């Protein structure tokens, strides 16, 4: 089989190269310029390459190349015990790692059939919404930078630092968080963490209002973004758009409402949608989502239920260290979990969460072993980035940069 494929492969490859060279030659005859944007261009905020065919300032065609930071997570996951896969998910959308972590935990919990206590679910909601705020905050402020407004970026970046302080208090890490465990959280929210969240809820609305004031009705910003990189709802759905980018086109699909997980149905919030699906609409949708996230955090923070912060699942949830030293059962479970000697039941699950960029799905096939038989990540960035060519065609180069920023393509999630 391998040999057959090999010949098919090389033939196809040669054919592709011939075709590509031909195409480039054709384009040369038309006096078009070939421009190599990336892979390490600072304006792309990540490692993507786009070979553009330019007619003056206008983009006629683009060939995107991805895979520069592909790390084979799906393959690596097939050899790791379930709890060691969480750090891999951090590194997909590194702007909102807690959402990835918890999406993965919920997938495994679904496979194992573990019920999570309300308190743990609420803590998860708080952390996930904080992650969403930090994700949207980066996207929108970078959009400002790309259209020439650096101030707002530095101003809200400080707030991201405060969010990272909260992460640090909850799980010890700031960027690649590895937050929570299969079965709940690793520890309860400490008084300091609660204090930091309270402070954030008080301080952040003012900051975000000022940021909005700087950009939303700013003449230069509007001129640069309205009508830029627009896509219709039909095309967006065909391209598999989800998240803020889909909602900007006017489709109100949000996983938190459609398939509520982790007690999202307990909270009051709205799903902002746009109308034209252009860069400005994407900016507005993300802005409004930040307000809605704040609303959710406030509700969860006020109504944080009493109870345990993790499920009673000794086979999968690491026991507290104190018990490991003093109790035989805890020691056994600790050893078995750490050595990866826990068999998961046979099964097949799909779970999706609303990630920073859309429906982040985990398709897990277990054959009853200690590692997943197959773990597939549905990465929203990977799926919608293929529409980028269509969105920038006929536009100007400077607009292509803005479109890329407003799509919030995260290289780690794109390449997995």
């Amino acid at each position, binding site marked *: 089989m391998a040999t057959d494929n090999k010949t098919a492969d090389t033939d196809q490859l040669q054919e*592709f190269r011939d075709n590509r060279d031909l195409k480039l030659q054709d384009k040369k005859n038309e006096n078009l310029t070939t421009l190599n944007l990336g892979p390490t261009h600072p304006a792309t905020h990540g490692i993507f390459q786009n070979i553009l065919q330019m007619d003056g300032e206008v983009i006629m065609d683009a060939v995107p190349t991805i895979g520069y930071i592909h790390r084979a997570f799906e393959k690596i996951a097939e050899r790791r015990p379930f709890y060691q896969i969480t750090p891999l998910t951090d590194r997909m959308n590194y702007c909102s790692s807690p959402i990835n972590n918890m999406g993965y935990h919920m997938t495994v919990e679904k496979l194992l059939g573990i019920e999570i206590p309300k308190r743990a679910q609420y803590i998860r909601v708080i952390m996930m919404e904080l992650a969403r705020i930090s994700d949207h905050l980066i996207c929108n402020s970078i959009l400002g930078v790309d259209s020439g407004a650096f101030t707002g970026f530095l101003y809200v970046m400080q707030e991201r630092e405060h969010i990272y302080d909260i992460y640090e208090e909850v799980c010890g890490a700031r960027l690649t968080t590895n937050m929570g465990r299969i079965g709940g959280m690793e520890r309860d929210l400490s008084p300091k963490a609660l204090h930091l969240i309270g402070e954030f809820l008080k301080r952040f609305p003012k900051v975000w209002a000022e940021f909005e004031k700087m950009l939303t009705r700013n003449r230069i910003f509007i001129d640069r973004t309205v009508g830029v990189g627009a896509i219709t709802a039909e*095309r967006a759905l065909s391209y598999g758009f989800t998240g803020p980018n889909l909602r900007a086109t006017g489709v109100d699909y949000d996983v938190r409402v*459609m*398939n509520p997980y982790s007690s999202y149905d307990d909270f009051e919030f709205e799903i902002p949608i746009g109308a034209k699906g252009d860069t400005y609409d994407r900016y507005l949708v993300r802005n409004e989502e930040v307000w809605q996230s704040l609303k959710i955090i406030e509700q969860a923070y006020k109504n944080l239920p009493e109870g345990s912060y993790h499920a009673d699942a000794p086979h999968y949830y690491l026991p507290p260290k104190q018990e490991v030293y003093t109790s035989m059962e805890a020691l056994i479970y600790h050893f078995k979990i750490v050595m990866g000697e826990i068999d998961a039941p046979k099964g097949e699950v799909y779970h*999706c969460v609303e990630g920073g960029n859309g429906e982040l*799905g985990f*398709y897990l096939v277990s054959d009853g072993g200690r590692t997943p038989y197959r773990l597939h990540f549905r990465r929203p960035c990977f799926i919608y980035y*293929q529409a980028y060519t269509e969105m920038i065609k006929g536009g100007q180069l400077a607009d292509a940069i803005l479109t890329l920023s407003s799509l919030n393509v995260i290289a780690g999630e794109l390449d997995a």
Partner: protein
Amino acid sequence: MELTNENVLGKLIAQFGEESIFDAYNPDGIMTFTTTRENIIALIQYLYDDKDLQVQFLTTMAGIHFPDHKGKELCMMYQLHSLRHNYRLRIKVFIPAEDPVLPTLTNIYAAANWMEREAYDFYGFIFTGHPNLIRILNIEEMEYHPMLKQYPLEDQTREDKIDTYFGR
């Protein structure tokens, strides 16, 4: 019509026959069934066009390799979503490894373009009619399809690695 797993399955079997829609089960609330590669495009097109179902969103595609299933080593999983009715379903197609050919879905869903390239890249699926079937995440010169089970990951506990290369 209320979209329950039984209703949808009955409707599909009535349309395509029991020899085309089989092995239906429900692992996690999402109905899963198997079809043949001859029927897959017609089936997905039918799901797309049908007024009651309106399954018009391709959530994801994932290849799976079962080296022990003789004659149907490779599995392609299509997961579809009817946003109108919030109904998800999962379709599987099993094909032999010697003949990993499937028809392309790019004429129905633009999103299938890169998903199929990914499946080709990692599992070696050949999608007939695909506009640009080349590797997407791995380098073009790669000579194998790395997600197949015959390529195991390195044993992390082996001791014959030469650590001096890595400065350890």
